[in-house]
């Protein structure tokens, strides 16, 4: 009998705690004539339910620009962020959900990107990140893997870049930086020897905003590799990258 009682208590406790969780959820009051609830998080999913103006819905979760809500009657559906921002809280305050806007092109803080290209004849893939100190000054870092005919390698660097016209849709920029190059000659060569050297670069490029959160960037850099031999080595690098900013 006792284990049953314990189990019942536990179950009751669970049941009792569920409304408490629901009560902590965020509720909004519909202001549009209708709030459209779709069956999935995307514009292609059908509108299966509508909620009238003045009714309350509870926000459950968010995926990209879609928020799952539950009506007072227990019906669930996905609502577009833009429409949810036209709702009010029960106390009459407007609701904002963080997301991109045309201003975020100039005002964003972080960027991450994937790049591919060519570094002195070697195929290159790279990941990069940047932080905008001001709308026109970036601090950035990138790591690239190089695949050459005679050797493979890694190239990492940190640097700064200046955007000439951050408010334009397409803007040129210049950058400088320093980093390290690690080269691993292929095993088929005679007497291969791994080597790592420091390097510095200067470059220029152009970037264009595709939408309020994506951009394409093309860049040319000239690296000077400070080798342990007598002469420094100069390498050209070309990359095209696709970046997301937030």
């Amino acid at each position, binding site marked *: 009998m006792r284990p049953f009682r314990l189990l019942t208590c536990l179950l009751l406790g669970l049941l009792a705690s569920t409304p408490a969780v629901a009560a902590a959820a*965020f509720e909004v009051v519909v202001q549009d004539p209708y709030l459209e609830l779709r*069956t999935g998080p995307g*514009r292609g999913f059908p509108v299966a339910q509508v909620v009238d103006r003045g009714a309350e819905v509870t926000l459950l979760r968010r995926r*990209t620009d879609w928020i799952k809500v539950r009506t007072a009657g227990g019906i669930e559906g996905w609502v577009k962020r833009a429409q949810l921002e036209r709702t009010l809280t029960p106390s009459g*305050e*407007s609701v904002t*959900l963080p997301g991109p806007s045309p201003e975020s092109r100039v005002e964003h803080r972080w960027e991450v990107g994937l790049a591919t290209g060519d570094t002195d004849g070697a195929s290159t*893939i790279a990941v990069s990140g940047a932080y905008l100190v001001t709308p026109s000054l970036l601090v950035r870092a990138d790591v690239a893997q190089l695949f050459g005919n005679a050797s493979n390698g890694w190239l990492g660097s940190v640097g700064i870049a200046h955007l000439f016209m951050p408010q334009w849709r397409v803007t040129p920029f210049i950058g400088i930086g320093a980093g390290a190059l690690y080269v691993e000659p*292929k095993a088929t060569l005679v007497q291969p020897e791994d080597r790592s050297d420091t390097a510095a670069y200067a470059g220029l490029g152009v970037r264009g905003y595709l939408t309020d959160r994506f951009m394409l960037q093309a860049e040319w850099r000239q690296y000077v590799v400070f080798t342990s031999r007598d002469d420094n080595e100069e390498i050209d690098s070309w990359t095209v990258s696709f970046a997301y900013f937030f």
Partner: protein
Amino acid sequence: MDRELRVLLLSGAALVALAVPLQARAQEPSTPAAAPQVVEPQVKRREVNPPALDTENFEAGAFVGTISIEDFGSSFVWGGRLAYHFTEDVFAEATVGTAKAGQTSYEDLSGSAQLLTNDERQFTYYDLSLGWNALPGEVFLGGRRAMPSAVYFTLGAGSTDFGGDSHFTVALGTGLRVLATDWLAVHMGARDLAFDSDLLGKDKLTHNLQFTFSLTAFF
């Protein structure tokens, strides 16, 4: 007397004439000052961010399947994937996978000749891809369940370690993602890993096709 009276009256009239506009002017600033005395509401409409709204744009999971490694037969492949969904249409994905390559026909027929050591047979790759949810839709199970789904295409680049060398790899993929629940997704996918290889003497572009089944969770 007459004259004195006239002077008095005139100066009095002059004083009044002067005083009236002066008074008017003195009152002038106080008249508009009366207008802003209407109480202005000091309360600004506050904007509220929903507290702790669960944002689930990351997707992580594992896959198993089979890969056909060109010239080296088909093998079991397994690995992990991590995706970030930027919008309902576009996502980025990082994939890591590994398989153990089999033997070439030559090795099988000759009996003893081995082209690669055991370590060199380990086929390990990673790639970074961009994905596009080209065909969003729903999958219907029976008459009562409809699950959001998407057919997607991915294109990316990465590296494959095989035969004692790293190869620049282009990864082209397609898949079907079905959301079993709000956070759990089932994928079926195909992917082509293409890279240049000179393992068998001359340089050639190899295509390594992979078919996988994966489970991922959104968080």
